[in-house]
């Protein structure tokens, strides 16, 4: 490892080179390695969760139980799908983005507590395996919300589910502490809080929710586990417990948790929209502060998941808070629209996914307002309308944002561009497949199709078949994504330090960055989103010179670090992105 005092060198640098594969498979305290580890684990679980979704949609092609043979098998697939997608894909993926990008964006050498960072990551794989092992002992079947009494009747898998979730919760608390300290303490001079990139604001808000809410999950799970193994009866009404207790405590965590899942994506698209439309962010302060207020108001809405079981007097207050949370969200949406308005929009894959986020998350948010009003929710509760609503927010919001982030930062992480052609296929199949899958579910839901069952009324056949077909398209879209990742590693064009000509600090170094990230003390550009000015152009030109994609003439000095550039650069498909990106500004 290099020492803290790196020599200042002004020659062009190509790349610090990717670490060897072995580095990623063992304990490491480098935030960049840990970020990649998070990402690989999360993507693997995304794949597993996706296969389960495909199987469920296959089952739902017909009104009867046939493919799974038994409704209980459907229920276990549904439970595992939901849990994996939330706790082993979206949340670890936030760990991935946050770990890789946040320290770079604030010009830090690493996270505040590198060891703790690695520890938090290494809890996840065993916890994930524990969850999957449930299949050997009779899997969990009670849905990702695991309401008692159902969750107390189940098999041992339900216990493994609870233990695994407990571990994942601890991991995310430890990770969040690290994020907060890093962001608050380790910014360089010249970067006050309100000059910080918006992704950092989003991660900060997310981390605050995690440290305040996740302990409630820990508490609820502990009591559930005690009910299972120690003969207590917190949730067993017949023995003096209270089933609604679980719902209260669980949702006090889990509703804030849905903002855990979407806030980082909001941060990602704030970056992407501004960079790829070459315009300053509109309403920087409002976007930053609305993240915080979403985090805050998010704590007051939990009981809207329980409208049907709540004491009637409490319904209206929770309805009001639920509506209030639409306000900061609306502020963000309008700010984003104003950001791209009149900009030089480059329809890169990252930008496409960010625009996809805008439109799909908008529908997610609006359906949220619909189910947030009590009279409508009494009708729609536990129907496919809800399934559609939360997929619009989680997939159309969270996951689209994560995809945008992957397309945006992959060049930084690997030093190679992704294939824009494949990226467009991925985007359009996802976008069309998504609407195709989840719009019919809205109709089915309004017609009363209950969620979480493998059977349905034959009159709903057409909606379900449509939905299933769409789901297969959606499934296929992911294959393009995975193929693209592999393609880029093998043949992608060399990215250079700053392929998108972005102003934030993560681009002011080579791709991938060296250990300890920077070649000298990083000096942030005064306005992280000051695109379009002459000063910014000069700054970026200088950066382009210092961290180019390839050297014009090979020098002795650069021979080791330029190794990536000497390999054959990507061919036709990849270069289209490069030329358009090179022309930006």
């Amino acid at each position, binding site marked *: 490892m290099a020492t803290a005092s790196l020599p200042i060198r002004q020659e062009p640098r190509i790349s610090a080179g990717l670490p060897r594969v072995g580095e990623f498979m063992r304990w490491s305290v480098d935030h960049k390695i840990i970020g990649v580890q998070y990402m690989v684990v999360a993507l693997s679980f995304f794949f597993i969760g996706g296969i389960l979704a495909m199987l469920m949609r296959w089952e739902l092609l017909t009104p009867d139980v046939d493919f799974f043979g038994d409704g209980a098998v459907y229920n276990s697939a549904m439970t595992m799908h939901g849990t994996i997608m939330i706790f082993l894909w979206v949340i670890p993926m936030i760990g991935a983005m946050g770990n890789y990008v946040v320290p770079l964006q604030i010009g830090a050498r690493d996270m505040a507590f590198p060891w*703790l960072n690695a520890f938090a990551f290494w809890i996840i794989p065993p916890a994930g395996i524990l969850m999957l092992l449930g299949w050997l002992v009779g899997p969990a079947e009670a849905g990702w919300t695991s309401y008692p009494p159902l969750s107390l009747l189940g098999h041992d898998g339900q216990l493994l589910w609870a233990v695994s979730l407990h571990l994942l919760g601890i991991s995310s608390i430890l990770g969040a502490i690290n994020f907060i*300290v890093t962001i608050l*303490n380790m910014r360089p001079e010249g970067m006050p809080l309100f000059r910080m990139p918006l992704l950092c604001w989003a991660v900060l808000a997310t981390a605050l929710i995690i440290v305040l809410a996740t*302990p*409630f999950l*820990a508490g609820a799970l502990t009591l559930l586990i005690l009910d299972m193994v120690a003969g207590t009866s917190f949730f067993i009404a017949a023995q003096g*417990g209270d089933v609604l207790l679980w719902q209260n405590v669980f949702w*006090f965590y889990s509703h804030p948790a849905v903002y855990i899942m979407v806030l980082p994506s909001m941060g990602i698209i704030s970056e992407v929209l501004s960079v790829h439309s070459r315009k300053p962010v509109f309403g920087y302060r409002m976007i930053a502060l609305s993240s915080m207020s979403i985090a805050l108001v998010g704590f007051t809405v939990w009981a809207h998941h329980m409208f049907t079981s709540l004491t009637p007097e409490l319904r209206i207050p929770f309805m009001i808070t639920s509506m209030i949370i639409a306000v900061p969200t609306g502020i963000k949406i309008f700010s984003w629209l104003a950001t791209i308005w009149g900009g030089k929009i480059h329809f890169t894959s990252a930008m496409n996914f960010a625009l996809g986020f805008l439109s799909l998350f908008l529908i997610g948010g609006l359906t949220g307002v619909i189910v947030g009003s009590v009279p409508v929710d009494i009708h729609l509760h536990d129907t496919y309308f809800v399934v559609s609503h939360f997929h619009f927010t989680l997939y159309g919001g969270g996951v689209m944002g994560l995809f945008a982030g992957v397309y945006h930062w992959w060049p930084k992480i690997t030093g190679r561009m992704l294939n824009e052609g494949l990226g467009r296929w991925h985007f359009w199949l996802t976008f069309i497949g998504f609407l195709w899958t989840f719009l019919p579910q809205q109709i089915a839901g309004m017609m009363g199709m209950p969620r979480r069952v493998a059977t349905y009324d034959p009159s709903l056949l057409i909606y379900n078949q449509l939905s299933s077909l769409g789901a297969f398209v959606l499934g296929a879209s992911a294959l393009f994504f995975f193929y693209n990742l592999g393609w880029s590693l093998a043949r992608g064009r060399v990215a250079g330090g700053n392929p998108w000509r972005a102003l934030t600090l993560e681009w002011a170094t080579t791709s991938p960055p060296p250990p300890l990230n920077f070649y000298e003390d990083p000096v942030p550009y005064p306005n992280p989103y000051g695109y379009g000015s002459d000063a910014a152009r000069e700054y970026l030109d200088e950066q382009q010179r210092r961290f180019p994609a390839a050297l014009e003439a090979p020098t002795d000095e650069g021979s080791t670090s330029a190794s990536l550039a000497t390999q054959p650069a990507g061919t036709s498909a990849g270069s289209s992105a490069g030329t358009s990106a090179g022309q930006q500004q």
Partner: protein
Amino acid sequence: MTKTLAPGKPYTEPASRQELLAAKNRRLGLLIFQVSWMMTFICLSVVNWQLRWQYADWPPSEITLNRIFPSIATLLLLASLLLFRSARGTLTAVDARVSFRRRWWLGIALGFLFVTIMAVEFFRAPMLVGTTYRDVFRVMTGFHLAHALVIGWLAIRVLRNPSPEDGWAIEAAIKLWDFVFIAWLIFYAVLYWI
């Protein structure tokens, strides 16, 4: 292993910008951890409240709560906290080592008394076999005891070699013991008074 204590020297003296940052990070990190972890105690208090709603009599009328022993235990805990703090204060004095040890040991002893009393409460006190009241009572006291034991053990480890360079270990132990005390105050109020 035992490092000598240089009298008269403040026990945290960051040498460089990096060490300063590291110290700042540790403090903030510990603070956030404490706030976060305190939420688990608040969660259990909320659980207690929600459960008691359905009961006309809570605690069940068969038992009378003995508030004397827990109150004594609370005072002991407070005393031990104060002793820890004053022990830390002596570290800069000339005969640092001796008086530090004396006070720290005493603090641990009082902490141990607290643990003993509460362990007796846990096993014996307001018990009605098979009631939810007992379940919650035990979960809360047991959860707190577990923390007191682990953190108390850390405090004993600090004692093995108190040194000025190790200022952080002492500071952290004290802050964690603060945590034990505040967490206990919440539970004490919820379990015995409210």
